[in-house]
């Protein structure tokens, strides 16, 4: 119960600060909508929207998430607050999960805006069930938020800074994007649940795995 409270209060703190500064979420959403607009210009006349929407959806969400992940620890580093957070009695796992939970909100918003923008710009009349899209995008967003939190910390403490983020994130998230795009494409094409459930289950498994590995590595990275 204490851990849940810690996770909640850390996420609350991050989101409150985030919405007051506003810059990161607005930048991520703007990037994703603009990317969809440009995709529709470059591909719209060549392919049917439903055929490519899933790939573009996951690619856009991945890129937007990474662009925001680098700023996950901005507030912590601004005046040395992270040192005090680490010195508090809160477990490292709770700190990681709280910050990942806060990251989940912008990633989910980006996923929702991207889905809407793709449907609009590619004029997809029947994009499939919104509930099924949500069931696929949610584990993807969880995995991206957790990976972004972890890699945000690593890039912060590397001399390479944010330029290190894509190099770390892309290879680690290939399975997540692959199964996510596979499942989403079947939703866009209105395939039955039996065809979607396989990659969807794998997606949930990968998301849980990313969170678990992230929590373990976060503890290792922040000790000392």
């Amino acid at each position, binding site marked *: 119960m*204490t851990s849940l*409270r*810690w996770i909640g*209060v850390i996420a609350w*703190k991050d989101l*409150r*600060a985030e919405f*007051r*500064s506003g810059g990161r979420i607005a930048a991520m959403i703007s990037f994703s909508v603009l990317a969809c607009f440009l995709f529709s210009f470059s591909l719209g006349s060549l392919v049917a929207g439903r055929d490519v929407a899933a790939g573009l959806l996951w690619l856009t969400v991945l890129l937007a998430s990474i662009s925001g992940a680098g700023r996950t620890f901005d*507030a912590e580093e*601004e*005046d*040395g*607050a992270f*040192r*005090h*957070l*680490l*010195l*508090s*009695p*809160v*477990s490292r796992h709770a700190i990681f999960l709280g910050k990942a939970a806060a990251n989940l909100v912008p990633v989910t918003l980006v996923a929702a805006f991207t889905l809407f923008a793709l449907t609009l710009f590619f004029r997809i009349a029947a994009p499939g069930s919104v509930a099924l899209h949500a069931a696929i995008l949610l584990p993807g967003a969880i995995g991206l938020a957790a990976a972004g939190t972890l890699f945000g910390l690593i890039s912060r403490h590397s001399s390479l800074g944010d330029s290190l983020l894509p190099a770390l994130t892309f290879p680690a998230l290939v399975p997540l994007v692959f199964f996510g795009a596979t499942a989403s494409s079947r939703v866009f094409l209105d395939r039955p649940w039996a065809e979607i459930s396989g990659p969807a289950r794998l997606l949930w498994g990968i998301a849980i795995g990313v969170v678990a590995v992230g929590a373990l590595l976060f503890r290792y990275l922040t*000790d*000392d």
Partner: protein
Amino acid sequence: MTLAARNLVCSYGPTRAVDGVDLEVADDSILAVFGPNGAGKTTLLKALSGERTPDEGVVVADGKAIRGSDPEWRCRVGLVSHRTGLYMKLTVMENLLFFGVLHGLAKAALAAEEALAAVGAPELARHRAEVLSHGQRQRVALARTLLHDPDILFLDEPFSGLDPNGAEALEAVLRERRSPGRIVVLVTHDLRRGLRLADRVVVLRRGRKVLDDDRAECEAEALVGLFTDSGSPA
């Protein structure tokens, strides 16, 4: 309450930032740690507070070796540094409530109000940290540290950037903290203030302890001599 370090060694790569330091801090006392830049003062403080695990040696509190990862230990320590550690987009009260909840305080709001009153800054509660001066932020940082009433207070260059009034106020709070069951460890460049507050003085140079004495035996001019290689180790 006692705190002791036995043969502490902390290294960064091949460099020994703290090299075989022994020290003891008695109950109800303030220890001031002086030294030139790069002497290992902050690293020593991190080892004593449990923020950093020493490569060799041990830190002992009340006769038991400490583990920095132990939540009970973290509840017993508080830290004030020259960086305030506040979240700039949150108000002062939100900052205090956040850390109060993390420390498991049942009445975090009440504790926050009392802590702000203790540092003479109750009027700052509704202001965002980003609009405060450094001196005001430092007062709030001290209030945050006092929230959970730590047994051991670690201060890392706390006077840095404070105006004379702010420094006086901080000194007054530190004097109040000198009481049975409590210890203050102060790392500072400010010899005059440090000597005024301390009961015991340690001087580090290149990671080694070159002086460990009662404050009464120390004079600022003599300490400055110890900062350079020409000074003779104790």
